[in-house]
């Protein structure tokens, strides 16, 4: 019972949502209610996960584990943000500014670092993957699209060249569509497995 009940709830919810998408006018009101439940459940799961994370870091501090200073920083940052939101409210402009002042520089620097690493990795691709048809076409297409993105070739205003560039610019879209169709079908089948209780990675 302990194992079947969550699966049953998951299956019934999934069947209901699928039915609501088909019988939209009749079930629209109920769909909103069920989606709200999903949001509440996801928030509760987040709370549980955050509590586990905090307990893990508290234990690390109490045991004086290596790198516990980072645990202190994490818990302090969490407490300041949490109490700040409780006292000032989530819509408070000062609170939002404070959060943005911490979050934005961190995210931007990570993004900048990722751009640098990406350039380095692109240059080293032949060393890491070796010379193959795939890596050569990867390298050539990266170069071609870099040159096209510069816009210099378009500025020459040669009709034939513009037609070739327009054709080349369509190629990534075609490739991406092919991959996306595969991913879409994969996601659909995974969804159906969840719907019928076949996908039970978490079941035991």
């Amino acid at each position, binding site marked *: 019972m302990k194992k079947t009940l969550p699966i049953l709830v998951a299956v019934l919810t999934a069947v209901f949502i699928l039915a609501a998408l088909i019988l939209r006018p009749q079930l629209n009101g109920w769909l909103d209610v069920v989606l709200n439940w999903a949001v509440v459940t996801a928030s509760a*799961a*987040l709370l549980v996960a955050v509590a*586990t994370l905090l307990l893990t870091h508290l234990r690390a501090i109490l045991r004086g584990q290596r*790198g516990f200073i980072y645990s202190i920083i994490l818990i302090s940052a969490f407490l300041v943000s949490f109490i700040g939101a409780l006292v000032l409210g989530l819509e408070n402009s000062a609170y939002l500014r404070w959060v943005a002042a911490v979050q934005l520089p961190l995210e931007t620097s990570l993004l900048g670092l*990722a751009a640098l690493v990406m350039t380095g990795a692109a240059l080293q691709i032949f060393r890491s993957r070796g010379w193959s048809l795939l890596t050569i076409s990867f390298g050539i297409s990266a170069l071609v699209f870099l040159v096209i993105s510069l816009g210099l070739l378009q500025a020459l205003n040669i009709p034939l060249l513009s037609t070739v560039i327009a054709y080349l610019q369509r190629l990534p879209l075609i490739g991406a569509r092919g991959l996306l169709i595969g991913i879409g079908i994969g996601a659909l*089948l995974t*969804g159906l497995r969840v719907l019928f209780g076949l996908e039970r990675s978490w079941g035991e």
Partner: protein
Amino acid sequence: MGSLMIEGMSNVDLLSLAIVLLALLSLGLNLLIHRKYPYRCLRKNDALLDAEKLMHAAAEKGLRLTIGLGANPNNSVPAPASLAGLPVLRLMTMRSVFNDRPAQALSGDGALASLSQLIVRGKYQNALATELFKPDFGLLAGAAPYAYLAGLLPEVNYRANAGVFLIGRHRPETLLAANLADQKGIPLVAGSDELSTQAVLFATNARLCLGEDALYAGAALETDASAAAALRAQDWLRVLAALGLLAGAVLKLLGAWP
């Protein structure tokens, strides 16, 4: 009832419904046809086969395996692709219950973190070793994609890692974790449903699951018969999609399609 149903639906809705029914039919048929030997003659992803070897190697060397299950970009309910890493975590935990260093799962989403805890705890219960279970084995690395990345990096950098798995919804910035694993010489198996992530990870040493292969980890690892049936159904549907696209192109060329 039937006409009432169709009245409120657009052509796109009807087409979607037809695709869902077709997918359901092919899944059911594949489950039925291959019910005795679900994994026989199955197309398997090399990266996921390597994952299994890594699990054995980690057990022999007494080292740890780390898995990043991905983050949810919109902080909404997890999409099917978010669940992609869970079959790997399931097998990884099963193999490492009595290891010196048990597997470590990290998630970038609350629901996913709770699911990973559920799996890990379930595997310890199945092995009658509940006393060995610690909640730290399935942790929330961060509630936002960048926070997840920041939480993931130190775990990839952990000195006793035998291998790192990044399977689920990962953004291109995950390249930082892949690069760190590269620098430390840690084998990496990666799979994501994001095209840009697949492209950037191709530039690393990672063993990659391209396209939708990451969604069928349970089939490649032979732990989930329904995943094997879904993989076969996927191949059928892909052939149908290709034929449909070709037919559409021919009809358009002949002027029969507006």
